[in-house]
């Protein structure tokens, strides 16, 4: 094996849970040691144990740890890191943090502070994209606190309209308004949520596109002026405006439309002076029109589906780009092979309006098999607390076609056993089994249209539940663990991770 040049001496991963581990994996394949940061709540977390080194950065509330920029930069300096990967969420789309890294002489693995600032401001980026002739949703071109301005814009665009946080993402600070009388309270609620989530209560208004699909394009841009797209992901299956099932390719696109949208996505990135990996989101309406929604300036939660159909490692590409390498020629000649689906495993009750669920993971075992990937931040014994976002893991499958991918996903969800908190596994299986999903009628309204009256009749599972409890009560009274399969519930992180390590191991 040819020894590759080490791109960075050491990378700090300024995040937690599954995405922190995902980034550390990319560091490993590049031969770069990684450093974790952790809070009080994460003392025993998987991501802390997974890194080569780990630094304690404070109390559980994000403001005192994962959002504390100076603590993270100090930790990077102390451990000799010359680059920081922010993951998604937390500081990933904070231009001040990107600037602080640059000022400290540490490479921020992501776009420049200026590109983050521009694209993070939904109002400014709309103006910029209008200039670049990218199709936009009709709506406000500026924003202030004047409710009359909102009323006028709503009347012009026509109801329903959507209130969105200017600094927004992930459904936070977002409200659909169907009737003029609800406009003011909705703006108020959106502002409150935006203030809490992003520390910025600026909201704006645009026309609500009824029954669209959510289709986004993955972008890679190097620091030498080259920008490519790595095809689309369809993320139309959403609850509370948050994606739960994502797939690629989208059934809605033919090659001509894919090429057109892809080239517009590249245009968006270029207009913003974008470098590194990013995602250009579009709404795609029933008549085949598409509108630029926003550009996410980070690695996305759903990036693995792209990786599986294109054979790329997007986080490795992020690190290569940040180190100043040009995009490889191969990235211009990618094709989509087969079909990939991702299901997000949140700690939430899929049988009770997706209320967040907390608790301790008392059993954990992952599905295995060809084309099955699990990006997980949890293990047996993990505590799921209210301190952080409820995403625990992602299950991703790859198969030769969509029909097989759907079946593989259903099977893998059934084999993925997480006990101690609620999840939406059964809900997602019912989505995947729905004839409308099979037919590719995947619109952002899918759940309210098709799943509204869905219920699991728990009474019908009474007997099997009691039979299972009986089996468990018998096995717990015996002194030996149950024999059979190799997938142990009590696997330690080291068993889960395999045996390899880089550098000196954990030294804190």
């Amino acid at each position: 094996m040819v020894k590759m040049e080490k791109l960075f001496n050491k990378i700090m991963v300024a995040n937690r849970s599954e995405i922190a581990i995902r980034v550390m994996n990319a560091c490993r394949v590049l031969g770069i040691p990684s450093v974790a940061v952790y809070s009080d709540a994460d003392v025993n977390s998987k991501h802390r144990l997974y890194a080569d080194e780990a630094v304690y950065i404070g109390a559980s509330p994000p403001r005192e740890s994962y959002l504390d920029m100076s603590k993270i930069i100090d930790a990077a300096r102390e451990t000799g890191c010359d680059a920081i990967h922010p993951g998604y969420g937390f500081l990933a789309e904070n231009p001040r943090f990107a600037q602080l890294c640059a000022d400290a002489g540490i490479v921020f693995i992501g776009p420049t502070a200026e590109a983050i600032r521009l694209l993070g401001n939904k109002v400014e980026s709309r103006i910029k994209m209008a200039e670049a002739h990218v199709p936009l949703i009709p709506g406000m071109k500026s924003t202030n606190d004047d409710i009359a301005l909102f009323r006028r814009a709503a009347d012009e665009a026509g109801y329903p309209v959507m209130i969105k946080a200017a600094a927004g993402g992930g459904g936070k600070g977002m409200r659909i308004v169907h009737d003029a009388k609800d406009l003011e309270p909705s703006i108020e609620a959106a502002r409150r949520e935006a203030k809490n989530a992003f520390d910025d209560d600026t909201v704006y208004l645009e026309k609500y596109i009824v029954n669209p699909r959510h289709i986004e394009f993955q972008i890679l841009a190097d620091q030498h002026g080259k920008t490519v797209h790595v095809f689309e992901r369809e993320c139309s299956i959403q609850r509370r405006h948050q994606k739960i099932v994502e797939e690629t390719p989208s059934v809605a696109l033919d090659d001509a439309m894919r090429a057109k949208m892809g080239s517009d996505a590249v245009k968006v990135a270029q207009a913003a002076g974008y470098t590194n990996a990013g995602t250009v989101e579009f709404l795609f309406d029933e008549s085949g029109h598409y509108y630029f929604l926003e550009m996410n300036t980070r690695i996305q939660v759903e990036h693995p589906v792209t990786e599986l159909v294109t054979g790329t490692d997007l986080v490795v590409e992020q690190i290569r780009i940040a180190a100043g390498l040009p995009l490889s020629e191969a990235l211009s000649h990618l094709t989509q092979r087969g079909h990939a689906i991702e299901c997000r495993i949140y700690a939430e009750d899929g049988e009770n309006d997706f209320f967040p669920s907390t608790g301790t993971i008392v059993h954990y075992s992952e599905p295995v098999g060809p084309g099955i990937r699990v990006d997980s931040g949890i293990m047996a014994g993990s505590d799921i607390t209210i301190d952080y976002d409820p995403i625990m893991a992602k299950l991703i499958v790859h198969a030769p076609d969509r029909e097989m991918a759907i079946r593989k996903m259903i099977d893998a969800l059934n084999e993925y056993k997480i006990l101690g908190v609620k999840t939406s596994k059964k809900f997602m299986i019912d989505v995947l089994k729905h004839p409308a999903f099979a037919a590719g009628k995947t619109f952002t309204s899918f759940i309210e249209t098709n799943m509204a009256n869905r219920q699991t009749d728990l009474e019908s599972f009474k007997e099997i539940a009691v039979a299972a409890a009986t089996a468990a009560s018998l096995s717990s009274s015996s002194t030996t663990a149950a024999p059979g399969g190799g997938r142990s519930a009590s696997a330690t992180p080291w068993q889960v991770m395999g045996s390899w390590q880089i550098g000196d191991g954990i030294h804190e």
Partner: protein
Amino acid sequence: MNSQDFVYGDGEVVTASFEKDGETIRVTVGEKQFELRPVGTNLYATTINGARSHLAVVKSKGVYYIDFDSVLLEVKEPSELGVAGGAGDHGAEKDKIYAPMPGKVVKILVAEGDRVDVKQPMVIVEAMKMENQVNAKAKGTVRAVNFAEGDQVDTESPIIELDLEEQ
């Protein structure tokens, strides 16, 4: 055949008869019979109506947590009856409004003396960075508002109490 009692759902006591045949466990519950074979720690294989399923079950603090074909189920031991539950166990108390999970009260939408209708929004609680709106479960008049906006709440203290209207 041995037998053992369990508690399912809202307190129904269910009796299981069972026998062990090597590793296989045969269980009869009411009219239904099951054969469970261990296939890993906490994992069992069973066949129902010709379809094979893997189920996971583990006991923790008196509760059996079960995943059967992704349906999440809970069974308790009879001794656990009457133990105070956590969030979500207030289903029968229609005159009290609880937070769905510990969090911060961001907005109280009613005041003492207000008449409220079923499903009327009562309070917004923020937890896990999401706002959760809690609605009235019955018609009535607000008797007491026990918390103010900005207060931290748990799932055991009612945020709002109602005098219910006669049905």
